[in-house]
């Protein structure tokens, strides 16, 4: 297969998607989305988390099958049922995370994706081809370098080269700059724009960074809750137009009744907190906040800006590298004794992995907080399984957990019921601090309403609630104060009464710009 020398001769296809609808159970992820991408255009796909950007692209690349609607290539209706079909049609995707083999060389990584690689590789012939291919490219990489020696920017370039080598003329870049420095990002996006302007490729750029969209894209499609909320030429749109398309113009959803104004004593103080992610890269940088009794503080932000690491640090699952966490005026070191004394409760995202033991029953998972306290613990040492079970039955009824019984393994429950189980455990007695992350992710409307009501109830009872969510509507509905987190820092704060949607969206979309 030798398509590289044809780059420039074969024009990218015109890609048209019309009325694409995709449902997952009761959830409509895409609702009659249409998009048209002319050969040689650089098209940005903009939207919040969960707006449907990835789903749309996956329908195009054959990962998902749309329930309704069509994909047209150069005006012909085309069935794309697999990534292989997509590759044959010249459609390629560059993922957010690298798909290179670190121990192999650039040359080896380039050819390993070929569909019909022979059993014995004629390296001399291949290298000649590869060199000719490289010479034709706007950016070059030494064929013999090992992947492990490449910088993140060079790896991203190689991912793009690989797609071009495999014959893709239509490239989807999924948030390609999230792992790059701003300089690398500018360089790569600039090169992609040049290739597009020369008519050699078309590009879809998935992004939430307005600056990138403004600087490099010709056209933009904005998605909001699975629908196209705006489409047009970037040159004709202002930044606030795009923000408005992203976050919508709705008035705030009606929130639950609130009893107090919410400004009691300070329960939680975070000062200058710094946390590294798994790779040792700073994820939370110099974060400070205060949380008072009887208020819900919402932290908005695009996912991947340090929220998960921040919650893990508060949960005792990750250590801070600097800064302090102070609970009720005392430095907090996350021991069981302190958690109990300060009545700190936690509902993290993906609770089955972060706050439950899969192999254990619902009753056992409900006992995680107080199995060493009476009545479950007898004499401080013995586990009273009957008492554990009786308490579980009570909590299951009070929080309406749908389960086969207290002895059913927690894994057999649906997502909403796992959420209810954890909430039942955390809110079974008086709480002072409640930390909640994406509590309603993937739940149906009824479960969402119930869980939000319980959070507001806790606030009304004087709990200090920290709500970290990627769902801006949820933040706006529940919070008394709204903070925006970006690149590991709190970049914006506003009381709920003065909240301006556009302003929040702008701070979420781009830090310090």
């Amino acid at each position, binding site marked *: 297969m030798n398509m590289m020398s044809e780059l420039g001769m074969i024009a990218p296809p015109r890609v048209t998607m019309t009325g694409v609808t995709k449902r997952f159970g009761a959830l409509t992820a895409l609702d009659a989305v249409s998009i048209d991408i002319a050969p040689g255009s650089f098209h940005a796909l903009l939207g919040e988390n969960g707006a449907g950007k990835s789903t749309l692209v996956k329908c195009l690349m054959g990962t998902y099958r749309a329930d309704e609607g069509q994909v047209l290539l150069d005006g012909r209706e085309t069935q794309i049922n697999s990534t292989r079909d997509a590759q044959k049609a010249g459609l390629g995707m560059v993922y957010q995370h690298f798909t290179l083999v670190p121990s192999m060389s650039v040359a080896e990584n380039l050819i390993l994706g070929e569909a019909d690689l022979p059993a014995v590789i004629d390296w001399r012939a291949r290298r000649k081809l590869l060199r000719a291919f490289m010479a034709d490219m706007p950016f070059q990489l030494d064929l013999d370098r090992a992947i492990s020696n490449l910088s993140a920017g060079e790896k991203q370039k190689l991912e793009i080269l690989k797609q071009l080598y495999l014959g893709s003329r239509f490239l989807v870049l999924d948030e390609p700059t999230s792992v790059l420095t701003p300089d690398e990002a500018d360089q790569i996006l600039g090169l992609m724009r040049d290739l597009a302007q020369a008519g050699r490729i078309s590009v879809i750029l998935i992004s939430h960074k307005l600056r990138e969209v403004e600087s490099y894209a010709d056209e933009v499609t904005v998605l909001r809750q699975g629908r196209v909320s705006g489409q047009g030429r970037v040159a004709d749109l202002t930044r606030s137009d795009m923000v408005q398309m992203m976050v919508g113009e709705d008035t705030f959803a009606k929130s639950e009744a609130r009893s107090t104004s919410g400004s009691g004593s300070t329960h939680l103080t975070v000062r200058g907190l710094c946390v590294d992610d798994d790779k040792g890269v700073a994820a939370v940088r110099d974060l400070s906040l205060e949380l008072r009794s009887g208020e819900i503080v919402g932290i908005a932000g695009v996912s991947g800006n340090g929220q998960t690491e921040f919650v893990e640090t508060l949960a005792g699952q990750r250590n801070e590298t600097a800064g302090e966490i102070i609970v009720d005026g005392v430095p907090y070191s996350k021991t069981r004794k302190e958690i109990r004394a300060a009545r700190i409760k936690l509902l993290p995202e993906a609770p089955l992995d972060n706050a439950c033991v899969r192999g254990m029953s619902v009753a056992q998972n409900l006992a995680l907080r107080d199995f060493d306290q009476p009545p479950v613990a007898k004499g401080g040492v*013995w*586990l009273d399984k009957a008492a554990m079970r009786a308490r579980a039955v009570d909590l299951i009824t009070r929080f309406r957990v749908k389960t*086969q019984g207290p002895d059913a393994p927690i894994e*057999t429950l649906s997502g909403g019921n796992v959420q209810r189980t954890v909430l039942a455990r955390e809110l079974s007695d008086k709480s002072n601090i409640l930390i909640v992350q994406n509590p309603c992710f993937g739940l149906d409307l009824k479960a969402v309403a119930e869980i939000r009501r319980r959070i507001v109830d806790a606030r009304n009872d004087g709990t200090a609630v920290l709500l970290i969510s990627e769902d801006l509507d949820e933040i706006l509905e529940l919070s008394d104060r709204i903070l925006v987190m970006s690149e590991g820092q709190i970049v914006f704060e506003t009381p709920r009464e003065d909240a301006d949607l556009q302003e929040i969206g702008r701070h979420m979309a781009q830090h310090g710009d």
Partner: protein
Amino acid sequence: MTGTGFMNTMEAVAINAAAFVITMVLFGLYVTWLGHNPLDVYYVLWLGSFARQISIESTLTNAAPLMLTALCTAIPARAGLLVIGGEGALVVGGVATVLVGVLLSGAPFLVGVTLMSLAGAIAGGLWIAFAGALRQYRGVNETISTLLLNYIAIAVMYHLITGPIRDWERVLKTSSWSIPEELRVGALPLVDVHWGLAVGIVTCLILYVVMRKTTFGFGVDVLGGNQRAAQMAGLPINKMVLICCFMGGAAAGLAGAFEVTAVHGFASESLVVGFGYAGILVAFLSRQNPAAIILMAIILGGVAASGGLLQRRFDLPDATTQVLQGLLFMVVLASNAAYGRLNIFQPAAWRTA
């Protein structure tokens, strides 16, 4: 007993029985290839392990250390660690027993035996707890470190018994000094099996109660099931890991103590006969359940006991019983993949909408 617990037990019984049958078939093929009738071999296996009082006694004598070394893998495994250091902990325990025993020459029997057993248990416990500490505070993989600690323990013992504590009177066998004859532990009443068997059974039962009936055991199960949940609950993870490692290592050290006080009377290469490694197999067969270890150790003890007879009767190579143990280990490890996949043990009724 809850429905799930019963189903899980039945599942383990069924899978282990199947693994045992498959192993026997494979072993049959092996002896057929060597030119023997597999049915004769099975019969001799039975004869050598459970058929007569003398073979049962031999089986139980082999089972005693296996119960204790199995705990060395099973208890840390409940906290999520894969410890394979039973062999080293047994050797360290045996050497400590000799040292204390020699010092206690002239002590009353009960005092002497108690102190020797404690010395063996503490030495073995600290040995494995060291590996636990390396893991928690230095990020060293506990499987690798305990494997290497086995070699270190054995090397240290050889160093001691060939020099500093060598009994130069014993010419035919390189060994350490002997413990005083009056501190040697004898046989149980009624059967000709040493007291190590009773200690092994009682230790298994005590640890069963600790792991299954106490809040400590529940906390360990949470840790072993999901470390992130244990962190969220604020459990003292480092302390729990160290305690589990110490308990497991102490059990294996106790095995070494009884090999010295009840079987050999001194430390020598006779301590390094693979009880530690066979214990890993027993732990896996028992699904890390200390009560089940008692039964599984007796079955494995039977395999070991019949080895001599098997080799004499059929003129089989010395390694034949090790081939059998190895086959059983591989089949048991492979059969672990079957847990949770057999529909009859996973009633669809558990699933809710």
